[in-house]
């Protein structure tokens, strides 16, 4: 059981250059794999490939192998892909269905389409609302939410599907600090408790430092760095256009001023 990418190269239809080249990655149940990298380094493309949308739905050319639980995504039907792997788009506004009158119905839309019993749908909707902390938004019109609220509704609507694998493209980009922490903890909890395998694309490396079991840093469509969350302290991060976690950054700034990084300072961080 896993999503496995092996030697993946992907080129969008009509593009002259590949957006991903020679990317390999294994996402196992219960694990959180963090992905970061500069703008246009291939993070969102990787999400589309992982969830099977590229090339199955949007076309383009895929070389190498992408398997979900042993089956090539190119051999799976769209509904099979959707049932195995949930995908949260980077722009939450493009995720919402624009067909529902309330946030509750918006989140119920996916589970209803899975053909679940109504009791199960209702249970899942409340669970999803609770886990991202937006129960009070249930009766609201999804078209009339703030940017961050919309992002939380889009995330809840993916979580409510309870797929085996979740691919989330910058789920916290528009969230306040408390919302970011809440979502990070909720995702870590889902991986731990429900065994979901999660790929989390983030510019907020603090989130990855907190919950990722493994981190990939992309550059020009290829994996430039990978390993445990400790790679987020790698000095090459700056050249790769990635802002390190706040702790790493602060330590660097203090040392750069010629001040010793004492245990006392490290303690004050905790």
């Amino acid at each position, binding site marked *: 059981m896993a999503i496995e990418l092996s030697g993946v190269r992907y080129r969008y239809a009509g593009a002259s250059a590949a957006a991903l080249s020679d990317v390999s990655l294994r996402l196992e149940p219960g694990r959180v794999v963090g992905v970061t990298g500069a*703008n246009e380094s291939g993070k*969102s493309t990787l999400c589309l490939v992982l969830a099977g949308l590229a090339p199955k739905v949007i076309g383009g050319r895929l070389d190498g192998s992408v398997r979900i639980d042993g089956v090539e995504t190119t051999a799976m039907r769209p509904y099979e892909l959707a049932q195995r792997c949930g995908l949260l788009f980077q722009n939450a506004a493009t995720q919402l269905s624009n067909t529902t009158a309330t946030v509750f119905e918006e989140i119920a839309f996916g589970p209803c389409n899975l053909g679940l019993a109504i009791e199960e749908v209702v249970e899942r909707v409340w669970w999803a609302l609770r886990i991202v902390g937006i129960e009070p938004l249930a009766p609201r*019109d999804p078209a*009339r939410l703030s940017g961050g609220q919309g992002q939380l509704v889009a995330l809840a609507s993916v979580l409510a599907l309870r797929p085996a694998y979740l691919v989330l493209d910058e789920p916290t980009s*528009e969230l306040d*600090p408390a919302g970011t922490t809440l979502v990070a903890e909720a995702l870590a909890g889902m991986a731990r408790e429900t065994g979901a395998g999660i790929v989390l694309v983030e*510019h907020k490396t603090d989130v990855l430092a907190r919950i990722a079991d493994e981190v990939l840093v992309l550059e020009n469509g290829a994996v430039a760095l990978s390993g445990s969350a400790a790679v987020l302290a790698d000095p090459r991060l700056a050249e790769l256009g990635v802002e390190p976690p*706040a702790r790493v950054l602060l330590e660097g700034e203090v040392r750069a001023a010629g*001040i010793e990084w004492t245990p006392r300072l490290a303690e004050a961080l905790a």
Partner: protein
Amino acid sequence: MNVPLIELEAVSFTYPDGPTAVIDVTLRIEPGETVVIIGQNGSGKSTLVRHLNGLLRPGSGRVLLDGHDIHSVHVAALAARVGLAFQNPDRQLFAGRVASEVGFGPRNLGVRGAELEARVAAALEDVGLAAEAETNPYDLGLSRRKLLALASVLAMRTPVLVLDEPTTGQDARGVARVRAVVASAAQEGRTVIAISHDMRFAAECFGRVVVMRAGKVALDGSPAAIFAQAAWPELRAAYLEPPLPAVVGAGLGLGSTPTAAALVAALPGPAGEGRGRPPGRAGNE
């Protein structure tokens, strides 16, 4: 450039069939101030700034530019004075070429010819998109579409710049570009008003921080005042966190150090220089 004084007087706004998003907000923003608005998702930040260029009209209260109620000013005239970059660039972009997108605003202000070209080129340079002038905006990734939306506002050279979450989704280089845009606008004496969830950006790049909570202004002051330990309970009630240097500075008893630079200045210096406070005192206050 005539940079206006901005005054909001007891502004409230309720969306039709929706919640009251802004409640009784009074703010005075001096010409050339740099103000960042922070607060929980849904606390009314975007609704508030949409009043500054007439996109929304207050349900009650007034918005004044140089003492004139903007209710009596045509939206087109306001657009020449207050530029607003949206949180979601896809609500803003429509042209088929990056250069046309950026040229649209100044063209509508009557700018033509070499001046128009110069403005477009400069704005694209500022956001790092100079090489993409002929690209279709939708061939750019979301983060670069967002920079493009910023460029299209910059090209209008408005005395007031309003940026709704400009650093969202940007990598380190993109954030650096946004910081440079804010710094250079401030240096030119323009007013910059931004919304952000990035506390480091807020503390380092702005002279004034306004904290919104449930539609109201909860705190208003300098970064040192807003991120001082005494304000943390109020910040946390607004679902915010102080930046890390502030936490470390408070932990060591160094007072309010909202930025790494402030923390470094307050720390004892390299051996022998005798800068800052003696290490023995740290943490005893």
